[in-house]
């Protein structure tokens, strides 16, 4: 388990990514010089404090940044360069090959559409299913993510679901078309602590079973530690440390990573000194 070597059969390779939002100076780039790579089926954790550019990097991969944002560098997904790819070529990838689990499940589902209608959308669009086929598949998916009585739930609205259930629906939606890459942006931050562990376990099981590469973004090192193969630590829009989980957590090279780890250990009441700290 180590960081992916450049070249080879990568699922995703981000090289020297730079994002500048309109109205900001070039030196205030939201993301600058970010590089990382993932093999198929691998899990990469992107950690860092809020505002460090993690989410921006993820949205850049899906081409979903606000209009006018300047993206430079290279993002290759299964050999296709995504930077500069026109919208009509990006769209078939979204929801089909790349799924997104968004940070706030309370707001990630459209409040006026039924769960069933929202689950059917990608299935009918990308897989050309009939309404009936899509309904059957939606029931399977809801069942797979651990929602009881899935058939009855198709006609429910999001406000009838708890936060944890909504996030399960969002996850079901994101994996519905068998993507090869799943981007989970702070998937547990908005959830109760008791639910967080269940949702993480679901993400881990699903991606392992279906062989999906998972790019998980979190400000919480403990989330990433349990799930990821590799970790990239971001700060102020740059990757300050990148390597396998083992490497980064046992022998953090960057002082920022050491600080982050120390905080986690302090909170967990673990007296063990952060590895590598003199």
């Amino acid at each position, binding site marked *: 388990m180590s960081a992916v070597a450049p070249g080879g059969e990568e699922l995703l390779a981000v090289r020297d990514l730079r994002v500048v939002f309109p109205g900001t100076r070039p030196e205030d780039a939201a993301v600058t010089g970010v590089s990382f790579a993932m093999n198929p089926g691998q899990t990469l954790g992107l950690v860092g404090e809020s505002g460090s550019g993690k989410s921006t990097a993820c949205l850049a991969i899906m081409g979903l940044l606000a209009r006018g944002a300047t993206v430079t560098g290279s993002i290759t997904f299964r050999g296709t360069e995504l930077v500069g790819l026109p919208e009509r070529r990006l769209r078939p*990838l*979204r929801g089909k090959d790349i799924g997104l689990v968004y940070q706030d499940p309370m707001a*990630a589902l459209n*409040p*006026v*559409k039924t769960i069933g209608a929202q689950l059917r*959308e990608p299935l009918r669009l990308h897989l050309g299913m009939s309404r009936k086929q899509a309904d059957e598949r939606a029931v399977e998916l809801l069942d797979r993510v651990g929602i009881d009585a899935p058939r009855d739930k198709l006609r429910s609205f999001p406000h009838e679901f708890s936060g944890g259930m909504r996030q399960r629906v969002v996850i079901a939606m994101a994996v519905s078309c068998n993507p090869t890459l799943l981007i989970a942006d702070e998937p547990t931050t908005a959830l109760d602590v008791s639910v967080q562990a269940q949702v993480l376990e679901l993400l881990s099981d699903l991606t392992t079973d279906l062989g999906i590469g998972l790019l998980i973004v979190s400000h919480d090192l403990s989330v990433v530690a349990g799930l990821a193969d590799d970790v990239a630590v971001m700060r102020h829009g740059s990757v300050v440390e990148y390597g396998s989980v083992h490497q980064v957590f046992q022998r953090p090279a960057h002082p920022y990573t050491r600080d982050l780890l120390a905080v986690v250990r302090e909170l967990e009441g673990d007296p063990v000194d952060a590895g590598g700290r003199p």
Partner: protein
Amino acid sequence: MLTFLGKRALAAVPVLLGVVLLVFLILRLIPGDPAQILLFGTKATPERVAELHQQLGLDRPVVVQFLSFLGDLLHGDLGYSYSSHGPVIDEIAERLPYTVNLAVGALLVALLVGVPTGILGGLKPGSVVDKAATAFSVLGLAVPYFWLAQLLILLFAVHLGVLPALGVGGTAALVLPSLSLGLGFAAIITRMLRAALIDVYSSPYILVARAKGLSSGRVLVSHAMRNAASSVTTILGLQIGNLLAGAVATEVIFGRPGLGNYLVQQIGLKDVPTIQGIVLFIAVAYIVINILVDAAHGVLDPRVRKAWAS
């Protein structure tokens, strides 16, 4: 839904009673004796005035007059016009179609102009299109409809001579009144829809919908518009009331023989039963429209339906 409509209809009863009382009192408080006005131009001896007072029931105490008015109202009887002597309800029914046509025409103008400009502005805030849409809506809100009516008459009826300025000759005669009454309303819809869309587009569920691979057209139609529409409908209901008020002046300007024009004439004649009847009718229409708009709100948004149930 039925429970909701029933509840709202019940809640409207005290409002209606208040309107009845208010209309009744105002008409008695303003100066001018209906009998004197009816006898204008004839030899109004005190005896004839007293006789007329008795005929019209104006010699009774105000409380008795009110209770008798209320009693008739409960039987669906709005009384008889002082001027035409016909039943008020028939006078209303005869003129109502002209007013309804005008209101529907103005509403169509408002929706056909307001919805597209609101969408254009809301989709690309800050763009040239948005600035043009905003300029239009500011202008539409700032220009009074009765002045706009005169400008439209000058341009289309006097200079170009393509549309009639007065009368009720078919659809063509409806164009200018509908435009003058509808454009201000369109401006309000533009602003509301623009703001609602900008708000909706900043929601995570729009990002998630795009992440599912939906085209921007699909995101707009099946995700954004329904959410934006539910917040615009509320404003729509309130504005339809203003539309009815605006119809009064618009009918006078364009010489349309609708309810509003008739109301103005009868105020001049102090035709108390007719004025009462028309004002009450407009109040009922306003209340009914608002209940229907609230019901539409519930159809659009399941969370509103949930609030009804609880």
